[in-house]
């Protein structure tokens, strides 16, 4: 049995997450079991692979390992601030996080437009 950690979503509840497991996937399972009782809506889930940005969150406390994430959704400043895509991090201990979905029209989100090219 691999190491297991507790992921707390501020104000919503908590989830049990394996060391090699994507945090977002653990949260999906927890919501399925009714363990994110106070979450007012369905957990935002998209690609689960760090590309679409829908699972953007801020880690308030705890260590984690990260996969590559789209810079359209997490800039290097964001990254230094603990902003992550929850689907692209794996816990190294207990974690506390806050969901921080970006809204349309905010700067970072439009940044990828210039990447179009050929």
């Amino acid at each position, binding site marked *: 049995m691999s190491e297991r950690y507790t992921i707390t979503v501020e104000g919503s509840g908590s989830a049990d997450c394996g060391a090699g497991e994507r945090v977002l996937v653990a949260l999906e399972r927890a919501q399925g079991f009714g363990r994110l009782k106070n979450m007012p809506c369905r957990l*935002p889930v998209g690609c689960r692979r*760090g*590309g679409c940005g829908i699972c953007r969150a801020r880690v308030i406390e705890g260590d984690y390992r990260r996969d590559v994430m*789209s810079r359209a959704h997490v800039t290097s400043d964001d990254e230094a601030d603990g902003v992550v895509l929850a689907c692209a991090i794996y816990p190294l201990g207990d974690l506390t996080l806050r969901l921080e979905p970006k809204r349309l029209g905010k700067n970072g989100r439009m940044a990828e437009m210039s990447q179009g090219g*050929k």
Partner: protein
Amino acid sequence: MAHTGVLRPGFIQLRVLDMPAAVEHYTKRIGLHQVTEGPDGRVYLKAADEFDHHSIVLRRADTAGYDLMAFKVREESDLDSFEKRIVEWGYPVDHVAAGEQPGIGRRIGWMLESGHRIELYHHADQSEPKPRIHNPDVWDLEPHGMRARRFDHALLYGPNIQRNLEFFEKVLDFSCAERVDMPDGLLAIWLTASMKAHDIAFVNHPEPGKFHHAAFDLESWMDVGHAADILTRYDISVDIGPTRHGITRGQTIYFFDPSGNRNEVFAGGYSYYPDNPTRTWDAENVGKGIFYYERQLNDAFLSVVT
């Protein structure tokens, strides 16, 4: 010759975050073959049932999403006549030299008002593997993975799709096979240059240049089931399906590549003739139009794009 002008989607170029993971996904899982890797690191892929050089181009970048999609035209001279019509319509056209992508001749390109770059080209070298043409077997090389037969179509998200509709119909001679109209306006269009139910589709979306999915043609509903087995076996992220679209009637699964770009495997769909009327869907029935069995949109359909 009945089919002139734009023939079909030739290739699509997508941005990926991790090239080795992307290549493994598109070759081992979807069942494509790597043709070559260019000097700039772009990787060129094809299905074994396609003759032309490549149909998928992967470019390593720090964001996922769509670079461009290119349609093949029947004659070299079509490039000049379409360029004239596109410029007359009011879009500036640029030129990409032959060889910018290996095996592909000169291309013309322009930007749609939805923020997507589209290109046309005529020449493509053929590459291996490809179907034999004399006493051919059903396949020369045994299909693997999801057994994709070709790159089939793409769905793109952006603003001004009413303008895309007019442009594709009036300038590129496409037809609109189906459309969704909401009380506040046009939501989506399915456009075809061929007898396929769609070659490209657009959904109205505030952010320009977004990518919803690239679809691969499978032979049958059985192969869609086989693809679903592969998705679970290799823990590939699934969006929805296996299910069916009311629109086009295709049998389908939506899932994601390792960079979060959505893929579709697609089987069936009706044959479209250019004299067929446009099929229309309204707000009350759009759920059934998109996902025929669920009869409602999932949360991700309108919000999750790269």
